[in-house]
């Protein structure tokens, strides 16, 4: 077995090296692919806090991914058409500033996660999965019918949004921005896992009645985890929209929710770098197998099956064995 920290380090360095190599070889498309992987990884790092640490199998995380996307789309759309987002009760203007867009995306996601969490956490198991799925479909169909923002066709943004001090149109600079955010999220996730909150959440996933009998509220722990999780996935959604300069209802689709879960299962549930490994693997397969056949998902399915049957800890579990206990 390889120490988990070493695996993580190699993954991180590799994720940085590939686009730098692509830069040297003048292959901007590879940089875009790497950026896509990084953004997916960020979305999955978010879900991992709910699913891995909290045991909340949310099949509705596309809601936050999509909300992040639409927060970007709507704000940028109004900025490029010079129309206000709202005039009442006070004037809200559109914006092309990434930090502002991110903040809006995260706040909207937090609010949605709070409401969805409050309602869904009354249930457990398969009912929780179904309720989160239902919320996802609600948002999906709402987006489709929201003609003002493109309905089924989605919204195109002509120029990527701005970040102070960077030219985000240069692929490697936008990659660097996304990579930095992923690192920040990973760092936060690592701290969270060891924190008092992480300890209590981890116990709430395993034995809620024990958590209750020491005087803590397992529901509230899970709700907070769900909100944190939604916020990070929402941020990823805003970046994803900026990467494509396009948002559409598919960001809200249940396939999207499923893909984020698949990243985590491929890489390793509740493992710090599980979501990263899973997302990288997914994007790599999508690129190479997708070039071979339109039906590349068959191979993805086979791989997923093999992992679920023979490597429950995902790729990280395969390489590094069982998670070490904190000491």
């Amino acid at each position, binding site marked *: 077995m390889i120490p988990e920290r070493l695996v993580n380090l190699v993954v991180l360095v590799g994720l940085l090296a590939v686009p730098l190599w692509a830069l040297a070889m003048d292959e901007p498309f590879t940089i875009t692919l790497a950026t896509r992987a990084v953004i997916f990884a960020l979305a999955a790092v978010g879900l991992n806090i709910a699913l891995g640490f909290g045991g909340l199998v949310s099949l509705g995380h596309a809601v936050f991914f999509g909300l992040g996307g639409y927060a970007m789309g709507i704000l940028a759309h109004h900025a490029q058409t010079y129309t206000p987002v709202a005039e009442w009760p006070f004037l809200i203007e559109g914006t092309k500033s990434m930090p502002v867009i991110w903040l809006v995306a995260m706040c909207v996601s937090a609010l949605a996660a709070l409401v969805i969490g409050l309602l869904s956490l009354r249930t457990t198991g398969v009912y929780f999965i179904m309720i989160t799925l239902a919320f996802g479909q609600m948002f999906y169909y709402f987006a489709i019918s929201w003609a003002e923002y493109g309905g089924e066709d989605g919204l195109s943004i002509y120029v990527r949004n701005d970040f102070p001090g960077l030219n985000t149109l240069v692929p490697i600079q936008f990659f660097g921005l996304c990579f930095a955010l992923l690192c920040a999220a990973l760092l936060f996730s690592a701290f969270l896992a060891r924190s008092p909150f992480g300890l209590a959440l981890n116990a709430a996933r395993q034995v809620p009645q024990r958590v*209750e009998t020491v005087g*803590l509220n397992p529901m509230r722990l899970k709700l907070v985890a769900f909100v944190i999780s939604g916020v990070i996935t929402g941020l990823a959604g805003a970046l994803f929209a900026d990467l494509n300069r396009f948002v559409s209802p598919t960001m809200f689709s249940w396939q999207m929710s499923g893909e984020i879960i698949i990243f985590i299962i491929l890489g390793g549930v509740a493992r710090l770098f599980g979501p990263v490994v899973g997302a990288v693997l997914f994007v790599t397969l999508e690129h190479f197998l997708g070039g071979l056949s339109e039906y590349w998902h068959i191979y993805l399915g086979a791989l997923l099956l093999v992992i679920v049957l023979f490597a429950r800890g995902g790729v990280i579990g395969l390489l590094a064995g069982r998670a070490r206990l904190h000491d």
Partner: protein
Amino acid sequence: MTDAVLTTTGLSKSFGALKATDDVSIDLRPGEIHAVIGPNGAGKSTLIAQICGGLVPDSGRVTLLGRDVTQAPARLRAQAGLARTFQISALAMEDSVLQNAMLGVLGATGRPWSFLRPALGRRDLREAAENALERVGLAEARAMRTAELSHGQRRQLEVAVALTLNPRAFVMDEPMAGLGAEGSKRLTSFLDGLRSEAPILLVEHDMDAVFALADRVSVLVYGRVIETGTVAQIRASQAVRDAYLGDPA
């Protein structure tokens, strides 16, 4: 009488036609071990669930330190000073022994809302957890995964988690269950000393332990308390003999 730490008054709970708890009034006084015994199906678990939260009685009251907690959820009773151990160990099996004890300490502080500093790096919290493990004799095992503990060690950890809460009263659901003779003896002598810290309501099948420890014993049969008294009174009671202890006793 009014200085009882924990009181149930006329507690009743039925499931359909079955009266699982029938007009049960018992109390737990400072410094005592009050044992509740009874044959299988006597309603001991149902009684505990109503005392600790989880089941709401059909009628009657549960009072903890003068506060009516009949309707309160388990976590509020825990906050008010009630610590329980489970008959079947309810521990976070994937976590270390120390982490389980730490959970109790976090519960006692009531503030798990810290997201960045490592829990096990908090000297004050860690000491409280290690201290509890030390007391039950698990100090050596603190870095082990809980799933790897023996059955007896899990029972010890159950007690350690309860200790971390610094409770005003303990409710222990068959803490001796599945312990060997040696383990039972050790736990018996530990509980003997513990009663001076906080009284213990002890539900137990192990009669040797009950007769060695209990200041008072209540005998539960078909949901009713048929007798409450000292060990000598219980031994002498004809009603108890008939209903429960049978001939060999």
